[in-house]
């Protein structure tokens, strides 16, 4: 299912992208080291349970627009409900830095099919 904001996405990313470069607490989400730390967390914290080892599990992450890092951070931090399905919230269970790392990993696997 395509998100309604998919079209506006590119614009949002430009703006957010600009904001990020000024915020030193956000790691470079394209840095292979950050992505690989994210992958480790993704397995260790069992994101893989629900989303599959590479994003193609029960709650499939592959065929979606997951290009907005801020959106992904919030989704992971606050948890998500979709219909009757529920993802637990990870804020404080994972540190902010860790949530950015899994965000980087999610973007990397999603990018593979796009």
């Amino acid at each position, binding site marked *: 299912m395509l998100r309604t904001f998919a079209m506006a996405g590119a614009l949002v990313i430009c703006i957010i992208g600009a904001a990020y470069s000024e915020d030193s607490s956000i790691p470079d989400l394209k840095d292979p080291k950050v992505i690989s730390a994210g992958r480790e967390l993704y*397995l*260790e*914290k*069992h994101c*893989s*349970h*629900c989303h*599959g*080892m590479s994003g193609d*599990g*029960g*709650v*499939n992450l592959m065929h979606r627009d997951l290009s907005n890092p801020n959106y992904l951070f919030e989704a992971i931090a606050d*948890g998500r*409900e979709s*219909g*009757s*399905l*529920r993802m*637990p*919230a*990870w804020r*404080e*269970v994972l540190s902010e830095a860790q949530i950015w790392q899994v965000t980087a990993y999610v973007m990397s696997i999603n990018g593979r099919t796009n």
Partner: protein
Amino acid sequence: MGRRTSAVDFGSAALIGLALLFAAEPAAAQGPAPGTEDPNNWPQYHRTYNGWRYSPLDQIDKSNVGKLKVAWIHQGGDITHGIQETPIVIDGVVYSVTAGNRIAALDGKTGKEIWRFEPKLDPLTKKVLFSPYSRGVTVGRNKVFIGTVDGRGIAVDQKTGKEIWQVQLTDFANCQGCNFTSPPVLANDVLTYGSTGGDLAAAAKIFGVEAETGKKLWEFETIKQDAESWPAESARYGGGGAWLPGAYDPETGLVYYGTGNPGKDFVGTDREGDNLYTDSVIALDPKTGTLKWYRQEIKHDVWDYDSAYEALLLKKDGKDLLVHLNKSGFVFVMDKANGSLQNIWRLSDTINFAKDIDAKTGDLIGRLDPPIGTTTVICPSPFGARSWNPGAYNPKTGLWYVNAMEICDGLTPVMQKTDPKDYGTPHIGSEDFGKLQKVAGHAAGRLDARDPITGERKWTYEMNIPSFGSVLTTGGALVFNGDPLGIIRAFDAESGKVLWNFNTGSGLRSGLISYAVDGKQYILVPSGWGSYAAILMPALFPELEKVPGASTLIAFTLPD
């Protein structure tokens, strides 16, 4: 999509069914035959303490079930994880619990809300694994009792829904969110609450509470303090628990519970030993919490084969039996006085975690413990040979109607850190629940009609996708069963023929019941797909990805 097959052993099973029919209906000079008391109501989780899920009502029968129509519909609010309850009905009032421990009392004739109670939940419930669903309420002593997903017991007034007492029982924030997803058991003036624990870095407990006041009376540790059973520190996070409702047996004065699996589920190397009292049927004195007997079904479990399911109580040849399905697919028939083994039979056709089981001792023969770091295909999968949703026993046919599934799982155990504050991560010793797979030559799902003591099969209804709901059987010689796509079917209890079906619009994950008000019989169907099955099963059954969530009660009755 389903098809009915007659089992090869039809004839002999029918004979045994007949024999059972006589055995199961005792002289009963004093009072009604077991399972037939209080026919208009559904006063407790399985209706009667014997776990039968049998309604003696017979107004709806084979001749008219095809005419069923919707009497009313009630929406239960939050649909997160669907609807998983078995509603309670007493004197025409339905007591229902939906996501977030929201309780409602409804008029059984119209579905109109009489009162509603919504507790304020700890925000941590958003982070933990087993939340916000509940499997039911307990009604008695003019109160409605629940266990909450933040580990409390709460009592409200049966007439008004006003809170009477509440008590924090589990150490919710420090046991990785161990809590209550099932209603307590009422044993006269004591409530017993079994907590979640398997899959969590916790050592779970069962609590005894004074029903009038909420005062905690005792705790029973489902993880035994015993270095032989639990070496070094392993008992501390051993899991266990009793996450499904137990039952109080007034004949023996005991409460029976089944306990959860040891943790971490798939890695046993740091807990060499039997790991008592995980994967066990236990009998407790509700006044004191004293253990009267136990039978451990799976020693040193490394496959997530809980014993949490229902205890089916039957009498045969003067013996009082307790029939108990373990997730592993083995059904244990025991003497309810002491748990001694009478028989073991297989519900699942596909068992490979052990070559066999010794029917006399219950010892597993030729275990397949999946090695760490490599993938091993294990059957049945951690979802079990059946989901937790109970079967139903009909004394008129002597048959137990029970769902079954034939699904294996490619499991890869890994060492895992233990952290009781790592709320969203199951403490199971793997990075996922494995790769689910179907079994060639077998339907993935079945509804079986079985002799509960020998396991002999009278009929089978095969399904492409297994059912994750509970079965209901009635005095009208009917069996009701729903599937994850939302279709509920009525079967002829004797032949397995489908007599009626209805699309409820969302999958079934709950307990179907029957009750009567003012001489009219109703079939009440909670419809609403959700839970871990809804999250994980689409990988194997892509059709399930499209099933919408819901939290709906649908009442059916016959036209006037």
